[in-house]
């Protein structure tokens, strides 16, 4: 695992124009980085902009501001021309396994084509053995190559989609909600596959999801997103025990536990605001149980709270160690 990040995102912004209405800053300045062999989980609820971020990172969306660097090279959005060869090693797996494979072509043909484009050779020269090797790497049998996508289940199609991404010999794969359309056993199997692949092939993975519980199992680091911005980044081992941002705390509290104790999950007040008109100051303040005056007026920066963690919350101002929000709020209240 080399030290330079394989993928670096700096102050990325993505803006959607809407007819007759205000433009929407779906991504309002996000920075993150991933190294080879590392798995980053990007977690957030509907409307937080995580899918838009994923697409902008690989070049499927236009950027309004900021940079994306893949292996040191600037990544430009796709134009009509072919993507630069080096950048094909930045790959993507999409959410819906039913629409991410061409329904009218056999699996083998699609994988063969992906392999051919990676090595720049003519499609016919890709050997069957290489297609089989790809399929087996994702746990599919060789005879899958003869079949069409509709003959497979969701979990199997997702494996095939991963195989297609692997055909490009990637160093970074961005996966946009790869588990959301799958049933529970398929989720577990694909999750385990991704972890194994990351280890075997020294892959950097950016895993986008709304399911914090599963993600936290798979990833090394979790980045939490709310309304277009990152509110916290934390190693997954520390996430559950010590969330530093009130939103992360609320997310964790609202996940129901199957422990047989009839305990209602904690609900978060209010609704997610319209991204075209975000609240003033800290975007989360209208729903935050610890909101202070400062939060309504000034947007908090990304505080480095030590141990490789970041939290964008005024409660962490001046922290050298991550502070539990409830404790930090109580301490501040006492001081006043």
């Amino acid at each position, binding site marked *: 695992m080399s030290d330079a990040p394989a993928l670096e995102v700096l102050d990325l912004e993505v803006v959607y124009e809407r007819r007759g209405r205000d433009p929407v800053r779906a991504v309002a300045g996000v920075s993150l980085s991933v190294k080879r062999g590392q798995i980053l989980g990007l977690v957030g609820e509907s409307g937080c902009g995580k899918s838009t971020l994923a697409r902008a990172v*690989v*070049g*499927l969306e236009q950027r309004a501001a900021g940079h994306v660097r893949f292996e040191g090279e600037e990544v430009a959005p*796709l*134009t*009509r*021309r*072919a*993507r630069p*060869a080096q950048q*094909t090693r*930045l*790959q*993507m797996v*999409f959410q*819906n396994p*039913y*629409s*991410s*494979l*061409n*329904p*009218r*072509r056999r699996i083998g043909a*699609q994988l063969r*084509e*992906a392999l051919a*484009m*990676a090595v720049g050779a003519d499609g016919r020269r890709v050997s069957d053995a290489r297609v089989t090797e790809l399929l087996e790497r994702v*746990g*599919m*049998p060789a*005879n*899958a190559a003869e*079949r*069409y*996508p*509709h*003959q*497979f*289940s969701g*979990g*199997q199609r997702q494996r095939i*989609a991963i195989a*297609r*991404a692997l*055909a*490009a010999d990637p160093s970074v794969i961005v996966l946009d909600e790869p588990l959301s359309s799958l049933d529970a056993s398929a989720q577990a*199997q694909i999750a*385990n*596959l991704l972890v*194994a692949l990351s280890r075997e092939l020294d892959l950097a993975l950016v895993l986008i999801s709304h399911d914090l519980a599963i993600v936290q199992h798979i990833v090394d680091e979790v980045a939490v997103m709310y309304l277009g911005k990152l509110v916290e980044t934390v190693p997954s081992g520390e996430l559950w025990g010590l969330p530093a941002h009130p939103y992360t705390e609320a997310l964790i509290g609202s996940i129901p536990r199957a422990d047989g104790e009839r305990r209602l999950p904690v609900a978060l007040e209010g609704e997610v605001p319209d991204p075209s008109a975000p609240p003033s100051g800290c975007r989360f303040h209208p729903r935050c149980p610890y909101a202070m005056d400062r939060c309504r007026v000034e947007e908090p920066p990304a505080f480095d709270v030590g141990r490789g963690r970041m939290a964008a919350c005024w409660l962490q101002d001046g922290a050298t160690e991550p502070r539990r929000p409830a404790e930090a709020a109580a301490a501040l209240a006492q001081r006043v």
Partner: protein
Amino acid sequence: MSAQPAVLPPSRLARLRRRAGTSTGSAWRRPTMVIGLAIAGLWILIAIGAPLIEPHDPLAQDFAITEAPSSAHLFGTDELGRDILSRVLEGARHSLPLALLLVALSGTIGTVLGVVAGYVGGWVDGVIMRLADLVSAFPAIVLAMVVTASLGPSTRNAVLALVIVSWPIYARVVRSLVLSIGQAEYVQAFRLHGASAGRAMRKEVLPNVVGPIIVLVAIYLADGLLLLASLSFLGLGAQPPTPEWGSMVSVGTQYFQNWWMATFPGLAIFTAVLAFNFIGDGLRDVFDPQSSSARGEDA
């Protein structure tokens, strides 16, 4: 890491296939498509073999005029003493190839323009679509009448007029398919692997456009037949003595008491158009199994 075998139990396989892909089996179980194919097949055979099976020369004015159907003349004779059965059979050689030509020309022009509009976008798209709108603003038959009347009534001009009138539907459908398939995730994945937009168009988009085009062609073949017959009926298409069904019906309306003169050519038009409509419906179910008529069989 536990692997899943690719083989699913047959019932599950069938359900998945119905949900997401083509269902080649079900088309053949649709009785209307079978009937359509049978009738269309019959007409095609007639069109090919008419000179061999028609009892008399379609142009020969040898017989008693306006004779009712009899054993000598199964469909009777017309106002000039020609055998109507022979003329109806000969008419197939006239109408069917013209309808096919019409569909081939308008389909090709429309498809090409649709692909260009969808792929290039911008002002080119705008111009093509406005042209399409312009043409579609007029009822097809009216516009065709204007063109043939100004160019002079003839078979060639009728086909030309109908091509001008018919291309927009193909262009619109193809353009919208190109745009929507172009957004499909598998096309985006293809681009991410390093395909240029042109290559993605050729390899991923166009093959998926073929199916809907085939359906359109089958359906508009029926439409084309009817339009050709209509123009001839109005005297703007095939000119006498060509045995075109539409003009035969037209003449027949002036001899209402001799019902056979309009009825048999009319039946020919009716059965041929119906047959192609059935085929078009059946093809649509083959290529778009999610449509409700295809789903009608499952609980």
